[in-house]
């Protein structure tokens, strides 16, 4: 699997896709959706779709695709190879969401949570297949959240398509297993081949599974914690594991939209040096109001340093 378009800029979201098999433009198709790397605090999350003609479901099944989690990395690579060999009737597409996209989305001013991000990404991929001319008639989706609501949302979005959302769909429907293999292979490659855009020299690759409860992952995070910048972009800052380490080990950072920070900020500013009460009254009482020209530009005349 060639991830070079993503590796060229691993701070953004990137779509990769196979050729669209001709038969998928003329025959009714089934399409599976799955994700890889939702839980880890490190690396990208990958969404995958896989599609083939409904009439060739059995042939896909004969490739013995199975839920990617029950397979070893070598088995997944092998199965992905088989899917590539079946490219006359099987197509796939991936959306790689970089950890930086995950962090900046979840920590946005108007919060964009992981579920919404996941749903939008899945919808984007199905739309991509439709736009590419794939005759999508059946969609099967694996989900971690409540299935009914998600199924309703997708059905409304894609009228005329029969949508089935199921927990563990990756072990129930071969087309979802195939999607999960594509997604997991991409996630594995992206993590193993991660090129740190930071200029930190030789990096220690012993970050373990990337799951927050893995001691190796925790130790790696601590090792690369910087008091000012926090972590490299490989880390999802929005994960509580990362936040907890930052709260205890890094310099506190305050943003104007920090909510619970409002009070703390006020406290910080009130907590002035005793000496300030003895200094010029203009500073404390602010007897003269600056013209708006200056306040709009946050300009103040300086009387002391």
């Amino acid at each position, binding site marked *: 699997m060639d991830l070079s378009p993503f590796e060229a800029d691993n701070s953004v979201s990137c779509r990769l896709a196979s050729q669209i098999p001709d038969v998928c433009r003329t025959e009714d198709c089934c399409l599976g959706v799955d994700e890889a790397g939702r839980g880890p605090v490190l690396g990208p999350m990958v969404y995958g779709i896989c599609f083939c003609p409904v009439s060739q479901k059995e042939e896909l099944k004969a490739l013995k695709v199975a839920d990617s989690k029950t397979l070893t990395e070598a088995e997944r690579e092998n199965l992905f190879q088989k899917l590539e060999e079946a490219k006359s009737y099987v197509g796939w597409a991936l959306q790689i969401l970089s950890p930086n996209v995950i962090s900046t989305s979840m*920590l*946005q001013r108007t919060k964009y949570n992981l579920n919404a991000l996941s749903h939008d990404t899945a919808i984007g991929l199905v739309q991509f297949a439709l736009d590419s001319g794939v005759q999508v008639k059946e969609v099967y989706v694996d989900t971690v959240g409540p299935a009914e609501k998600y199924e309703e949302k997708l059905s409304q979005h894609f009228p005329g398509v029969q949508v089935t959302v199921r927990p563990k769909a990756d072990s129930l429907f071969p087309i979802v297993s195939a999607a999960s293999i594509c997604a997991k292979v991409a996630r594995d490659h992206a993590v193993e081949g991660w090129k740190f855009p930071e*200029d930190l020299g030789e990096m220690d690759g012993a970050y373990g599974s990337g799951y927050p409860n893995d001691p190796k992952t925790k130790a790696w995070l601590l090792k690369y914690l910087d*008091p*000012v910048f926090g972590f490299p*972009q490989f880390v999802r800052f929005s994960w509580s594991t990362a936040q907890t380490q930052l709260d205890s080990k890094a310099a506190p950072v305050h943003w104007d939209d920090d909510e619970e920070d409002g009070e703390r900020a006020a406290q910080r500013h009130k907590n002035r040096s005793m000496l300030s009460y003895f200094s*010029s009254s203009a500073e404390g009482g602010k007897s003269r109001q600056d013209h708006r020209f200056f306040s709009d530009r946050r300009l103040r005349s300086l009387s002391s*340093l």
Partner: protein
Amino acid sequence: MSCNTSVTHLDVTSLGQVKQAQVHLMPCEIEYNGPARVSEYFTSTTKDRKQEKTVSFRGRGLKGQEISCPQGYTGLVLKEINKHGSDQEDRTVRVSSVFNKLTYWNLETPPTSDDTVVMAMDWPELADAVS
């Protein structure tokens, strides 16, 4: 009236010898004073896209642009020498580096000519006109 009678001296003798500094104006308050690995973490991950630069800091998306100091002005980074406790004594600050341009960052919003710091650069010209 101030009861603080100390005087702050600005020592500009080093002005000709000091280096240009890269200055970033951040849209957040960082409770930290000291050296920071700016080029390792920040400059190296900054992307130059069309009209704006993008980067992230602590997982938050920033957009910014480079602006110049007003014509005829030089930015100074000052450092206090012999910092002492008493506010009765005179203080001396020295120029530790200079800058003619700086990069300011907004939290998520694209830089525009209405940004505070861009507008602030109007003042010297206006001050000249009214003086």
